[in-house]
């Protein structure tokens, strides 16, 4: 099957010392938190998009004061009593402490430039944005809530894939969210998806790519399998922009790449095009 390419370089260099999260990995500019907040977490020197937390994302998209969060009470359970190096419940508690979120997705009603929609925003800081039962349920409820109220869903994704600690039930969140999108579409409502870095694995292979309009942030990784896995299994030499938004645009998998400052006006225009209620 795989060609054996002896020219592939092995990655046995020592990794560089970890840099500060506020240091741009591309041009090494360093920012204070308040500077990044003002610039929507985009590097003002080179345009690199830093990861954006769910609350900050919502604040950057929703009209001031218009966001009403839903399904805040949902918390993950531990159906398998999962234990790797640490128990799953401990990882959950730690993620909750670290992020102040109950799980990796926040949903709720919002207005964008006075157009109503249902927002479903993921947060990579919560266990790598992994999709378990709570993320699946929240997305599913967001679709129902939008269908009932007659407005589109705007989803912003950032996820490493399905949450291993929930085993096969995590896998079942793929068909669950797919079925929710189908019900939303049958109700005549649109799904607008924005894929932020990274959107991979089970989230890419379910609702994220089923949007009526697919947008991505610059340089966002959007691949089903991660670059390391592909490299290890196939020994193929990866193109420089493997799985990135730009490659996905070139191959026809997304509609547009939208930089963060342009995202709110772009989504508002789409909401007007889909006749979202005022």
């Amino acid at each position, binding site marked *: 099957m795989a060609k054996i390419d002896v020219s592939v370089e092995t990655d046995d260099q020592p990794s560089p010392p970890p840099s500060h999260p506020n240091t741009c990995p591309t041009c090494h500019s360093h920012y204070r938190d308040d500077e990044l907040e003002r610039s929507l977490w985009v590097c003002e020197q080179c345009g690199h998009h830093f990861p954006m937390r769910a609350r900050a994302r919502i604040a950057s998209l929703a009209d001031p004061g218009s966001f009403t969060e839903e399904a805040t009470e949902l918390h993950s359970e531990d*159906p398998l009593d999962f234990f790797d190096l640490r128990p799953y419940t401990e990882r959950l508690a730690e993620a909750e402490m670290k992020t102040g979120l109950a799980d990796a997705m926040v949903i709720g009603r919002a207005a964008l430039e006075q157009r109503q929609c249902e927002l479903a925003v993921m947060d990579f800081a919560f266990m790598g944005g992994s999709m378990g039962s709570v993320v699946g349920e929240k997305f599913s409820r967001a679709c129902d809530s939008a269908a009932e109220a007659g407005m589109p869903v705007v989803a912003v994704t950032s996820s490493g894939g399905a949450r291993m600690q929930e*085993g096969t039930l995590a896998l079942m969140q793929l068909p*669950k969210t797919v079925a929710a999108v189908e019900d939303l579409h049958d109700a005549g409502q649109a799904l607008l998806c924005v894929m932020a870095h990274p959107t991979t694995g089970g989230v*890419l292979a379910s609702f994220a790519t089923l949007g009526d309009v697919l947008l991505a942030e610059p340089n966002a990784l959007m691949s089903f399998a991660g670059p390391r896995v592909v490299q290890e299994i196939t020994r193929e030499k990866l193109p420089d922009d493997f799985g990135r938004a730009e490659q996905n645009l070139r191959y026809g998998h997304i509609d547009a790449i939208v930089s963060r400052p342009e995202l709110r006006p772009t989504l508002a225009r789409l909401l007007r095009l889909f006749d979202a209620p005022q």
Partner: protein
Amino acid sequence: MPPSEHELRLRERLGRLRNLPLLGGARLSGELERLQRQIERIGEESTDEEIWRKVELARHDDRPYTLDYVERMLDDWFELHGDRALGDDGAMIAGLGKLDGRTIVLVGQQKGRDIHERAGRRFGMPNPEGYRKAMHAMELADRHRLPVVTLVDTPGAYPGVVAEQHGQGAAIAQSQATMARLTVPIVACVIGEGGSGGAIAIALADRVLMQENAIYSVISPEGCAAILWRDAGQAKKAAAAFRPDAVHCLELGVIDEIVSEPVGGAHIDPDMAARQLGQALRESLAELDGIPRDDLRRRRRARFRSLGVFA
């Protein structure tokens, strides 16, 4: 251990059926017996060793693959090739055949027997072209009101550069969406490895069955071990932690029924295994007969939308 929610649901269904002995006749008593069997299976909690034994059996070199079952279960098999756009993926089989005199569309991943066939079929790991072939066949089934049977047997979707360029993630999502839209009965059975997205892409069915020595999981034991234990050698521990075996999948409500295999595994007696699988498929299809088309689709979506455990 207290009975799981799914076990309670099964028991409740069983209780209801017992109280309706005159309705439905033989088919009902058949279902009664089957439900009773499923409940007994939940009681058999597997040990870590047994779970690993199932992982080994699911991947056994001599385990019957999709085409082995096609040969034994279906008459007049006619294979459909190609996705009508880019290529013909050997890792995914689609075709028309007769199961007990009734035309069905069958879709399933296919591993290879010898080294050449294995390479040609990419060890049963489909490319996007494979999922698009499956969608094409399922849409054909919907047009002609033919039931769909899918046989799941894949380590996962192929993780390749070209696969990504051709939209692997989207193909898996769209294949599920296609299944969520069909208005004909769909029965899926995991017959070997039910590996992650590559498996669920063809398993959004009205009834999901699993052979007793098959596995169904969100990630391979080796992949899970490499990420969480940082050591692929800990695969056994990983499998014990996420429990991909049929009994646990039944307990979680992920599957509806376990299909028996010959003692020692399906590879010991493929003919017998095919008879058992054929019988289970026929029973499941019979249960779905007569359900109005819209109801069928609504219930299928509701089935998957109810999956998940949260507080």
